[in-house]
């Protein structure tokens, strides 16, 4: 597959996923109807005073499905882009955003808020109290990664292998803390935490999106400047320096960018696994490992895959909603294994 057709295919899949995500639900709003409602809102110059026949669908779309779709696309894109950057930076096809401690740090902070935050929550204004857990998760994820980067740095150089091992150790430490809090948690707290770890796009609001967007956008804007450096790092850090890359700066930008984007993604949708690992691999299989095309195509494919998973999560067990992390892993993992067995030579260098 050429780069152009590969990227086009990913974009087509994303368009399909967006339409599916907006259309499918307890109230079906087909693609034609989507267009009509959208045109009506535009013609009317807003939702106030909309003709009665459009009010219900416009409300569902604008207040529920559109934010959910936008958040899903953003989270999927952020996870996949972060995964592609991490795999390039660590020169390791196994790398995913969890490797630099974001997910485990965020989980520990989230459970801390759920179990210990009650006393503080009622002192805060309502809006802030509701955001307590996502904010805690964001702060916990970012702080863990920065601590990790600090541990792995000496004389201004970050040692990637040390970072990997320290990440495993910090992950174990956060897991221990998380386990201890889970052990002391009440049943309702336990349930809240469990659902958070399985991930959901259910609580999406425009306000949440506005909070998370800048951090995800930061990685997206940095990506074009990382592409050439990540290509060179495939040769090894020393050879990357030989061809003119400031490797230390590349590592700093990559780690901070990934940590911010993933912390924002995890904070707004929980720990959704697998998209960050799998999407870059699928893209690499289709169009090769060059990061200039790999990074944007991974983001597009990640967005599409997460939206499709969310559609499945919403519809497979109606009226109940499956946790999206269960869907991404249940469908993604067998597919990935199948690919791995068939095409192993082209996935790992």
């Amino acid at each position, binding site marked *: 597959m050429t780069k152009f057709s590969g990227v086009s295919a990913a974009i087509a899949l994303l368009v399909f996923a967006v339409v599916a995500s907006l259309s499918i639900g307890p109230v079906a709003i087909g693609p034609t109807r989507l267009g009509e409602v959208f045109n009506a809102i535009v013609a009317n110059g807003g939702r106030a005073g909309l003709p009665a026949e459009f009010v219900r669908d416009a409300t569902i779309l604008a207040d529920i499905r559109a934010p959910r779709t936008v958040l899903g696309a953003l989270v999927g894109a952020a996870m996949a882009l972060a995964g592609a950057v991490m795999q*390039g930076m660590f*020169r*390791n*096809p196994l790398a995913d955003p969890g490797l630099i401690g974001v997910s485990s740090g965020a989980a520990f902070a989230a459970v801390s808020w759920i179990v210990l935050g009650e006393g503080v929550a009622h002192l805060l204004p309502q809006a802030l109290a509701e955001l307590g857990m996502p904010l805690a998760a964001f702060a916990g994820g970012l702080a863990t990664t920065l601590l990790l980067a600090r541990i792995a740095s000496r004389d201004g150089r970050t040692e990637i292998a040390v970072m990997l091992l320290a990440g495993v150790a910090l992950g174990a430490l956060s897991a221990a803390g998380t386990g201890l809090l889970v052990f002391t948690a009440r049943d309702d707290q336990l349930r809240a935490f469990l659902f958070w770890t399985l991930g959901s796009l259910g609580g999406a609001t425009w306000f949440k999106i506005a909070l998370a967007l800048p951090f995800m956008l930061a990685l997206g804007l940095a990506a074009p400047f990382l592409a*050439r450096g990540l*290509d*060179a*790092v*495939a*040769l*090894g850090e*020393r*050879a990357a*320096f*030989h*061809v*003119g*890359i*400031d*490797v230390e700066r590349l590592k700093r930008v990559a780690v901070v960018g990934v940590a911010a984007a993933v912390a924002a993604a995890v904070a707004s949708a929980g720990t959704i696994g697998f998209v960050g690992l799998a999407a870059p691999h699928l893209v*690499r299989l289709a169009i*090769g*490992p*060059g990061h200039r095309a790999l990074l944007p195509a991974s983001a597009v494919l990640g967005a599409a895959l997460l939206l499709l998973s969310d559609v499945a999560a919403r519809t497979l067990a109606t009226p109940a909603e499956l946790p999206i992390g269960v869907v991404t892993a249940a469908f993604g993992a067998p597919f990935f294994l199948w690919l791995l067995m068939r095409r192993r*030579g*082209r*996935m*790992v*260098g």
Partner: protein
Amino acid sequence: MSGLLAEAVSVRLGGRLVLDQASVLVRPGEVVVLIGPNGAGKSTLLSALAGDVTPTSGRVLLDGAEVGSFRPRALARRRAVLAQTNDLAFPFTVGETARLGLPVGIARREADAIVARNLALVGLGDAAGRPCSELSGGERQRAHLARVMAQLDAEPDGAPRYLMLDEPTANLDLEHQLATLAVARRHAEAGGGVLAVLHDVNLAAMAADVIVALKAGAIVAAGAPHDVVTDKLVRTLYRVDAEVRGVPEGPFLLPQSARSET
């Protein structure tokens, strides 16, 4: 002053003195070859000259300026390095690999031309679309040589460029050993400087204008091959008694005549 110069460079790694007051000058138009036993500090000296190891004492000057004062990108325009081992983490094609040496922002058509020219230079002209992971060890080595030559080929600015090769012939058959050394020679003839680490004393004597012999981190001899490559040097470096003979093209050593001292 033109040239790549190590001035009394010492390097201490993990408390061990790996390089002890080594001085080397690579002039434009010259091929300088480092020889010496395993662990003598050849690669460390090359790394110090390439700017990736900071000397514990002494200094490295590239055309008069401290090598550490260059930004990575500026340094990459002046020297290119072929490492001993070259592993790619992902399955890039031969063409993409050669392109990794080129700077950002180079026009696409020019990049294509440079890549094609340098793949042809190493005899991989028709392999551009093949994944590097499917190549033999020797072909892969040549693909990376093409990358390094492409790097020196891009954006010429008239300043001399230095080609640094760490055991470039290690995985190659005789034909490609000679071809690789011919690439290095042509680079020197075109006004560049070459520094190579070679293990084969015969290849070194054939390829070098200047041979620098290292042992235990210190330089024990330096000069033209016919002055430097002698029975005595071979004994000093490798603890091997062998007869060095000469032909008009230079000295040579027959391993068949060797008797190890130990």
